[in-house]
């Protein structure tokens, strides 16, 4: 019972998803856009499965502030993401980096499609279509 209760509470906590609204002021619209883009691509390291934009955890709040500061200081997206990756690992990147351990993830779907495409073109392309004897339907 106690165990269940704790589990229930844990779930309730994790589900506490409400909008977190901060009113940071930016010098330019580009910076604001950059800020929004970045906080929507970073995963909250402590939460279930939320971006730091969605999460109301204290850590996310801090991370948003760091992103805000870096954006205001003129850092690029690449620099900020690298900064986060260095501290929290690949886990924080919702956009998985293209590197050998992720090659399968990035290229397998395309490879599968190309194989199918070539197979179809070779097989169907060579075929001669026979006229059918009775009508167009087999009924």
């Amino acid at each position, binding site marked *: *019972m106690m165990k*269940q*209760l704790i*589990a*229930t509470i844990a*779930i*309730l906590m*994790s*589900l*506490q*998803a*409400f*909008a*977190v*609204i*901060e*009113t*940071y002021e930016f010098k330019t619209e580009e910076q604001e856009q950059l800020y*929004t883009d970045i906080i*929507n*691509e970073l*995963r909250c390291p402590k939460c*279930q*499965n*939320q*971006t730091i*934009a*969605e999460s109301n955890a204290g850590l996310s709040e801090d991370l948003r502030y760091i992103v805000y500061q870096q954006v205001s200081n003129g850092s690029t997206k690449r620099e900020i993401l690298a900064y986060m990756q260095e501290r929290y*690992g*690949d*886990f*924080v*990147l*919702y*956009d*998985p980096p293209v590197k050998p*351990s*992720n090659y*399968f*993830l*990035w290229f*397998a*779907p*395309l490879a*599968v*499609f190309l194989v*199918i*495409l070539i197979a*179809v*073109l070779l097989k*169907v392309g060579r*075929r001669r*279509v*026979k006229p*059918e004897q009775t*009508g*167009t*339907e*087999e*009924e």
Partner: protein
Amino acid sequence: MIPELGNFLLIMAFINAIFLGVLSFIGAHYQHQGLMQFSKRASISIFALILASFVCLTISFINNDFSVAYVANHSNTQLPIHYRISAVWGAHEGSLLLWVLILTGWMAAVALFSKSLPKPLITRVLGVMGFIAIGFIAFTLFTSNPFDRVLPFIPIDGSDLNPLLQDFGLIVHPPMLYMGYVGFSVVFAFAIAGLLQGDLDHHWARWSRPWTTVAWIFMSLGIALGSWWAYYELGWGGWWFWDPVENASFMPWLAGTALIHSLAATEKRGVFKSWTVLLAILTFSLSLLGTFLVRSGVLTSVHSFANDPVRGRFILVFLGIVVGASLLIYAIQSSKIRSKANFGLFSRETALLFNNALLAVVTFMVLLGTLHPLIQEAFTGDKSSVGPPYFNLMFSIFMIPILILMPIGQQINWKQESMKPMLTKYWLWAISSILIALAVVIIMGGIEPMALVGTTLGLWVLAGCAKYVLAQASKSTSFTIGVKKISRSYWGMLVAHLGVAVTVLGVVLTSYYSIEENIKISQGETVQVEDLDVEFYDFKNTEGPNYISSAGSFRIYSEGELITDLHPEKRKYNASKMVMTEADIDAGLFRDIYVVMGEPLDDGAWAISVYYKPFVRWIWLGSIFMALGGLLAVSDKRYRQRRREKKLTKSETTSVVESSGE
């Protein structure tokens, strides 16, 4: 007493399901009339038992019977009655019972509406579904029994339903989605039964088609409802998050969409039989995989259920048995399937082949993206994430060819078509799509290359539907006669494709042209957000049935004219002490204005979010069209007149089938 009765009924259903599973196959094998009759009756009685059991759980909720652990954990005396009823499926145990209820409901429906089918086949179909029911009822009974009591210390009050779930969305979204998920078990059972019998002629495809389409309709609506619910409930304007749980429902939908198309080819032309059967197996396997992902706790997700390793193991073993056994049956028996393959490269068959290849690859991509972090962690111990940037990019890559091919695929002839005369007819349509898209994106606020591509494709699909109607009409003497000649199932396809176009336009325009601004605003103040003026004119604390609410009142003006009056709230729920935001939305066909209360700031001002979301409604409107298309397709007269058709002479049958198209 009532919970025990519910438990007893569940056990009875379990025993019945075992009989059904075993006796059906014996009956079908020996063509024993009594046993075959039994399988029909058993299917209906299992449904009745589960329904009664479900009612027992519902009564426990209505009566606030907190001696039942599940009720105590997910309800509360303050909870309004309609949420007490929907709380039945608000968490793992009850939603599993709902799953079983719907599964047995489909089973009873198959038993009732299959009089025209050969008896041994239908008996085997029911037997396969019986086996699935055994698995799920056992899962409910032995790992997740909703009737478990908390004795002797009965809590005085329940710990309440999660406030996120105290919403209309919970009432409708899970039942719809489950109808779809579980509905694919019918075509799965047809496929396995057909494989076991070793004859999968085109009748198999014809029988499976309406069932698949109906399941697909529910699934489309279920997913759309979930997306709409997330949009207004989570309070930050998002409508799709590529969350593992969403992906879990999206994968069977994608596979099911592919299945609908390959079933069309199999029924009409006797092609791709073997692939269609495999796809039927895969679609339901993905449904099961989704269940596993959501309920086992292997994935971290915002809305996964309570996690218990025993449950995970049970359902993984069950998944392994079902998928393993069905693939084994497929491997042994599929060599008996004879497909015709008499079509050229430029034909509807090839178009459908590409449709299937692309949808299968998209499904694979979603699966890969969902499971990749798990696999990577298992092998290397590194934690990684795959999120929206990956899915959005990859999904777009494969959607582009699907959308380009759609208008051509729906018009091209079966078997073979000469390429040049067909394609030259499309130039004008393609160019006008591009030009209109260009105008649209300029009006919307600037040329974004991907927005232009997406809008063009949406319009291109739209144009394809219009072109089809015009082409049909021009074949006849007058427009109305020509249009009337288009069969229901063809209208179904057109409306569903129209739905795709509408959804695509909604997704593209809302993704690229939404405005989102967080502002600081005090009472009495007016703040400008792009072209809108937001006035904070009132603030009230009120008491709801089981929460305290702080509501702000905002007037939104555009060019000095009042457009809307919005009252977003922050609610604090009494039982759980959870704080929830309730966004207020001014919904419109062309744009939503969406205001959310944030936190009070130090100086008495509030942080609020204002969203302007153009065409966001089109995302769900498109799904409604898709579902409507499915409905038109299943209402085609050839499904209703199946028996009469048998009496027609051969030439007449041919003309009936031809006119009904596809």
